[in-house]
Every structure is written in C-alpha cells, then in structure tokens.
C-alpha cells in the first residue's frame, strides 16, 4: 500500500479560485488507511472549503482510484475543478480522464507501507526522495499520526 500525507490547506486553496466548481474525489483504499482520503477527511476539507466561500458541489469516495474504477465518479457537468485525495497514481488517473479540468491533489506520496490491522499501525517500508527519515517509522492506521 502507498502511504501519503496531506498537504497544507493553504497549499490547496492557493490553486483554487472562488469561481471554480469543485468536486472532491477520495480514495477509500490506501489513502483511507493513511488517514488522507477517508470519508471524514473528505468531509472536513469540503466543509472548510465551503465555509471559506469555495463552491464545492459534490464528492465521491472510490475504492482504488489508481484503477479504471475512478470512472465510477460521474461528475456533475458543471464541475471544472477536481480535488483528488489519493496517491499520485490516483491523481494521475483523474488527470488523464479529465484532461480539460483543473486537478489539484491534496496528498503527497511518502512511500510504501505495510499495514498491521492487529496493532492498527502502518510501517513505512520504502520511501520517496525527501522522506527517508520516515523509513521504518510507524503511524496510526486511518489517522496517519506518528506512533
């Protein structure tokens, strides 16, 4: 599985415009386990954006956005901006399918993780450049907090 971390809220809003019609697509597979794509995290982001005056019209939670299942998100025709809450592969899929829309990702790939449902923890097994310090570290499942 792929471990991701959420980007700062400001980093996301920097790329948004108040006129954007936004759909949020979250991945209920690895990103959910990492704590970056669950229904609650999606809801928190959407409500915060709405409070701040952004036009978030809908959202989809899809299992494995890195596969063609991402087509299951049948977007409202008015949507011109998509916020993806998934690893880079899920975002890449959305980018490819919706090439005419603005796609903003809220997650950054940290590396590969091994999940331990008994302990409810995640261990980082292999990291991307710049995240070597997390190698071998453990995080809580579904929140991504450091153990």
């Amino acid at each position, binding site marked *: 599985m792929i471990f991701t971390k959420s980007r700062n809220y400001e980093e996301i809003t920097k790329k948004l415009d108040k006129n954007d019609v936004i759909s949020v697509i979250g991945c209920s597979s690895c990103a959910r386990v990492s704590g970056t794509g669950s229904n609650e995290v*999606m809801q928190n982001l959407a*409500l915060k954006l709405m409070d701040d005056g952004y036009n978030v019209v809908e*959202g*989809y*939670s899809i299992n494995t956005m890195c596969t063609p299942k991402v087509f299951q998100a049948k977007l409202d025709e008015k949507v011109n901006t998509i916020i993806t809450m998934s690893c880079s592969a899920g975002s890449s899929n959305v980018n490819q399918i919706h090439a005419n829309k603005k796609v903003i990702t809220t997650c950054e790939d940290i590396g590969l993780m091994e*999940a331990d449902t*008994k302990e409810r923890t995640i261990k980082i097994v292999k990291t991307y450049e710049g995240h070597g310090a997390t190698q071998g570290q453990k995080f809580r499942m579904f929140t991504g907090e450091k153990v």
Partner: protein
Amino acid sequence: MIISLRNMSYDELKDKISPDEKISLYSCNACIIACGVGGLEKMERLENLLKNDGYNVVGKDLISIGCQKHLIENRKTDVAKKKIYEEADVIIPLICEDGYEGISEIYANKKIIQVAKTLGVGSFTMDRGVVLNTPFKETGLDEKKEGYGLGEAAESLDLYTDFFDEESISKVEPEIISITIDGKQISAQKNRNLLKVCKDNGIEIPHLCHDDNLDKYGACRMCLVKIDGFRDLAASCCVEVAEGMNIITTDDELEANRKVILELAMASGDHNCLTCSKGVPSDFVSCQLQSLIRKYGITETQFDAGIDKKPIDDSSDVIFYDPNKCILCGKCVRACEEIAGLCNLGFINRGEKTTIVAGLNKEMKQTECVSCMACTDVCPTGALSEKVIYFSGKNWNAKRVLNS
C-alpha cells in the same frame, strides 16, 4: 498501485535453490497481478516449471493482499496453511518489495528469494494498461506526465515484462488425452478441471460458485453435466478429465435443471436489480446471477419467496453487505478463508434461515475484517459489494451510490 517487475531470469532463480530444498510459492493477489509477476496462474506455472526441473515444491499459497502483516501472521497458525510454510526451506514470493518486508520478517528463519523489483507507484489505465507514474529515485527514471509503460520501464532498467521462461513452460509437454464433449472430439490435458477444459474450447457452462482462485466446491449445481459411466449428474467444476470421457454439457434436462436452480435463487432473496449496486453491469461490477437469469429468459419464479428480510450491514467503510441478495454459494466464505486466511465469514442457522455473517455474527466493522476485498471480488450477486459514496449538499451528506 505498486509497480514491480521481475528482476531475475529463471536460470538465476535456479542458481539460488537446490533440488534438496523444499520450496513453497507464495503470491499476492493484488497489484502484482497487473504487473504480470503474480497471481495463482503465474504461481502454478512456476510450480510446474520447477517440478519439471526436479525441484521439490511442497506448497503454494495465494494471499489477497500481501502488505497486510496481519494476514501473513495468521498463516503461522492457520491449520490449512501453516504446513506450507513450516515445511519449506525456501519461500519464493511473487510479491512487491512492500509485501516482501512482511514475509521476510515473519519467516526470518527461511530463505526467501525476492523475484520482483519495485519501481514506484502507478495506475491501471484503460488505454495503456499499467503505467508507472511516480518512480523511486533509485530507478534513475525521471517523473513524466504520461508515465512509463511496463515495457519501457523494463527496457530502461534491464528487467523483465514476461513471466519466468514462458517459452520453456510451453515446451514442457503435458499428458494429452482425448475426450468427447457434446459429440465433439477434444484433446485436453490429463486431469485438467472439466469446467476449464470446456472454457478452453469455447463451451461456456454456467456456474455461480466456482472461482479459479478457490478450491473446488460444487455448491450451486449450475454446472451439472452428464458423463457416461457416472451414476448421476456431475458438477463439472469438481471433475478432472480422463481419457475417453464422454460429456454432455447441454440438453433439455440439464437446461431445465439450471432454470429451476435460477428460479430457486430468485425466490431465495430480494434480487431487485433496481436497488442493487450491481444492477447495471459495467466493466467494474457485474452480477453473475442477473446475467444468467437474462440468458435463460427467466422473468418470474414459480417458487414462493416468503422469507424474512435480513438486516443489511452498512457498518464497514468500504464493504456493503446485503444478505437478502445472497444465494449462499459460499464463495465469500471460501475467499476469506483460502485467500485472506482470516475465516472471518461463515454460515449460521439452518434451512431458509441460513445466512452468512462476519465474525461471531457481528457487524462487519466490529470484526477482524481487513477490507482486503477478497469477498467482494468473488461475490456473484450484489450481496457483497464495494462501496462508492456520493457526497453533496451544504452538510456534505453521504449517500451510497447504487450503481455508477
């Protein structure tokens, strides 16, 4: 998904093992399949190749998702699986480097040979198949918008896109026998499963409880055929072909039986496609029961439904369970036991009250389910399905999408 490619030739693999060693094969049933390195079929091919070369393969095991440590640990105590690992001197996992971490940690006293190199994160696209989107720095590949096809990545990194010596495998001559199916003479590999032999030859026998990744079961009785010399109709999913077999796969009696089975299935629950997540077949989900009912032109059932509504389980974040759409084929129970290695699903009650429950009849979320999706992948109806959630409104209300 995690993108990995085979990193050694068959000769290099053989250099690492000796004919005296007991070998177990182990494969993940997730990303690695799309990369062409894993899955039951590939594992069986490697098993045949090694056995033909005189190596001692003592077992093989398919795991639904190899980066779930809990599932690997369970194998140490699982009655049906622990022997596969205990006996082995060598384990050859068809798995990415992420999954390798778990198996090498849990079976630290065994020789474990990693046959795949993990390159990074990628996606499965409709037009290009598997694409590597975000390579690890160590690969030396730069990130590019369109990503790398597996062939391109393999060429750049001197890795393999095909499976171990596919040409050599095809050179090993299996014992071929002659059988007759529906009056037609057919050559088939001795002891091959009859249902598969029929499929190989373009003869589709309807079935609901069979899955290539699971052990033979013979519960649904849809695949019953007539075989000369057999006292009664035989479930083709449980029969191995033998020289001279004469098989009838379709006639009026068999088709009438199949219609009755389908009508009984219809009467056994609430199979209303309008309220089912698998109601509209798509590339991602399709209902095998619906497909067969349409194929057989069944519009109503002669049997009384007359059963109580069973409670729906919507507790899991990712799995939706509607027992009213269950036909008790047992596929999910077997997938949870054989592939996940959890035994988290099982039958309870008897007769028309029989149902499948998670854990000790708890809600899915309260059980040790790890959401590996082994059960939803095999369910032939809308009983167990992956959730797609739609959010809308000023409160961002969540609603399960019936079909997308």
